[in-house]
């Protein structure tokens, strides 16, 4: 059994399952700063990376952590970091750097009550919009949300795969509840875990010719990623740049670059977006939830069905890109969307926008600190 | 002869007479005129002082350096010693020295 995959059945917490998922996906570099409630992930990685052939470093702050994982990614290693709300705010500038340089990496944001120092040890889901819009400028990001400890493992592997495939920082939006929950996790063997690696170019250019790091092959939207130190002589910059990587400060270069950065996710929305539907075939009321809230929402659906109400659950696995097309299709036949989330309305507005007025949208918020009870969701929905 | 009067030789070593007739190797200064931005650092810091500012304009409107006319008249043509300080002091990669090919062959 290889050192980095612990095949078998385990009893572990969400943080540890996420760390094991990262190791199984091939993560070889972790740079982070301890912050409740994600500290266990860093501690587990500090124990497991030496035997997995990786490197662990605790940096001086989250800004440095994000910079370090970008550098490690350009040196050829899969890298990740884990943080919570306040650290996530600090990382935003370098997330923007990761987006414009198209650097694959994974950021685990274990959400807690905010804003500011907020509720360090209690659950929240208040960073959802920040994951999408946190950094300045126009960009698209991939963000996933697990609802169980097994999913923490699976979704971290999925996040690494998305990051490598689309060359974008991928965010795993856990919440404090699932990160500290202890449940059974089954880690498959190495052959059964699907791993996607970044596309690398074949060989360095001959002397006299230059390599174009942002030129995509065959009309695709994601270029190959070379490593530093192999003779490709790449120039990577955070300024708006051309296909050759050289900075170019005008509207034409900005148009080409930013459009491709956004389109590579937007046009592949249907491939990337993943949702889980529960009893949605004949549903008239759709409960929309993600993360740990979806467990309460699932119970609420069962209670409603017992009362004879045709309820169903739409659980978002990928939060960004938002599954717009699914909501639009559902809005044709669904009467009401009930959005339950532990914030004062973030995904609610996305659902409302995509429903387009064809279905009523109700928000059942909890401002942070505790999960929804199923009765509270039903009461909020008016059932 | 004590060590103070002969700083580069230890006491007792014989002076090689030929060394007094040693001529320094000659090098040529090459100037890439269009890269010059007219800072005049090479002109100032050449130990031999063989450069001066020319009157012509290059493509960017600066006056690039040129070898002093006195050194073109022939008798002091071999003034550049190839210390290559101009190569280093120029921020533009616009000036460098090359060895004299005939002397190299010797």
């Amino acid at each position, binding site marked *: 059994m290889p050192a980095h995959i612990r095949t078998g059945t385990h009893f572990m917490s969400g943080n540890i399952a996420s760390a094991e998922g990262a190791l199984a996906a091939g993560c070889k570099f972790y740079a982070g700063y301890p912050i409740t409630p994600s500290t266990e992930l860093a501690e587990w990685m500090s124990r497991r990376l030496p035997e997995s052939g990786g490197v662990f470093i605790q940096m001086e702050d989250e800004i440095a952590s994000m*910079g370090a994982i970008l550098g490690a990614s350009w*040196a050829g*290693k899969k890298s990740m970091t884990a943080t919570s709300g306040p650290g996530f705010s600090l990382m935003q500038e370098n997330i923007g750097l990761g987006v414009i340089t198209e650097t694959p990496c994974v950021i685990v944001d274990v959400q807690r009550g905010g804003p500011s120092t907020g509720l360090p040890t209690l659950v929240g889901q208040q960073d959802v919009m920040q994951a999408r819009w946190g950094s300045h400028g126009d960009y698209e990001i991939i963000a996933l949300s697990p609802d169980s400890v097994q999913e923490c493992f699976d979704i971290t592997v999925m996040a690494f795969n998305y990051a490598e495939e689309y060359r974008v920082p991928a965010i795993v939006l856990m919440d404090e509840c699932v990160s500290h929950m202890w449940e059974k996790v089954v880690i498959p063997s190495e052959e059964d875990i699907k791993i996607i690696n970044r596309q690398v170019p074949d060989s360095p250019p001959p002397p006299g010719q230059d390599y174009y790091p942002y030129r995509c092959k065959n009309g695709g939207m994601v270029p190959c990623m070379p490593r530093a*130190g192999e003779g490709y002589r790449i*120039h990577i910059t955070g300024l708006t740049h051309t296909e050759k990587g050289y900075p170019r400060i005008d509207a034409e270069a900005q148009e080409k670059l930013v459009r491709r950065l956004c389109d590579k996710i937007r046009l592949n929305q249907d491939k990337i977006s993943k949702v889980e539907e529960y009893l949605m075939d004949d549903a008239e009321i759709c409960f929309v939830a993600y993360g740990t809230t979806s467990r309460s929402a699932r119970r609420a659906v069962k209670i409603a069905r017992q009362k004879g109400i045709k309820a169903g659950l739409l659980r978002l696995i990928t939060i960004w890109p938002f599954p717009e097309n699914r909501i639009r299709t559902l809005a044709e036949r669904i009467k009401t969307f009930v959005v339950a989330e532990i914030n004062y309305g973030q995904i609610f507005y996305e659902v409302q926008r995509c429903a387009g007025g064809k279905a009523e949208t109700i928000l059942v918020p909890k401002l942070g600190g505790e999960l929804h009870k199923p009765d509270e969701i039903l009461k909020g929905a008016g059932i | 002869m004590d060590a103070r009067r002969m700083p580069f030789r230890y006491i007792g070593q014989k002076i090689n007479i030929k060394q007094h007739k040693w001529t320094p190797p000659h090098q040529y200064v090459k100037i890439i005129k*269009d890269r010059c931005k007219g800072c005049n650092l090479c002109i100032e810091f050449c130990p031999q002082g063989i450069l001066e500012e020319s009157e012509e304009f290059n*493509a960017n409107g600066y006056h690039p350096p040129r070898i002093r006319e006195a050194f073109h008249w022939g008798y002091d043509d071999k003034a550049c010693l190839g210390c290559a300080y101009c190569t280093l002091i120029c921020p533009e*990669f616009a000036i460098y020295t090359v060895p004299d090919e005939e002397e190299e062959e010797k």
Partner: protein
Amino acid sequence: MKSDMHHFMRDVREKPDIAPLRDIVEKITYAEETTQELLEDHPLDKYLRRDRIPHIWCSGCGIGNVLISYVTALEEMKADIKKQVVVSGIGCTGRIPGYLNMDTFHTTHGRAIPFATGMKLANPELTVSVISGDGDLFAIGGNHFLHAARRNITMMVLCVNNFNYGMTGGQLGPTTLLDDISATSPFGNYEPPFNIPYLAAASGAVYVARWTTIHLRRLIKSITRALTKKGFSFIEVLAPCPTNYGKMNKKGTALDIARYYQQKSVIRDFCDPMLADLSRSDELVIGEFVDIEKPCFQEIQERIYKEATKNGIHV
């Protein structure tokens, strides 16, 4: 007022036609594809991105000297160019990677050092250098500098100190001297500056040196030493900024500032870095201040990892 306008308008009309020159300039500065035939060869051109020469720095700017010193050091060391990586931040000095024909990274303001740390730890075969400005490294990036020096990560950090934030118009920085005029201290700077070699030595750097842009052979030797030494090496280069800092403080042209460096600089190798404070006296103390041996981060980490995993998996 009206006559002034008139005078200005007349001047513009009388200027010679510079359209042909502009074409040549545009061809030189924006040509990306075809370049080799246009420009002549400098022996060190193979280290440069020819299609981006001439560079953007002002006439006489010290950053050009740092660039050519770095490149000459690589040439003299016969270094493997494939394994050289240069990382920089934002600012005039931050543009250096754009002109070097090797793997180079232009990152966010102040965050070049963590980026370089991640790169070096993920691939220890790379020789990582951080070349950045005084504001980038010691104002916004001060924390990262301290910790990288403390950890003794093997890298060379070269700070080009032009005493202000040049690219954005000459605002004061952490190295601007007291009473200096800058864009954000129009009546005089009321912040005492850092003594950078002292800071680097106190943080734990194993090699600390300071030179100016005219002490080029010594700078090349320092760069060679820093690139081959294990541990965190730091070199500060005092550079002229004739366009912003120099103009506002009446220092003259780059040539005047270079002459000033020639007259006032005093080489004091291995003196106490505390004496390297530039505001202490009229003289500029330069030289190599620290050259010690200490186990570097990777050595310590490898030793601990080996010890931890020698009995197999045990966590």
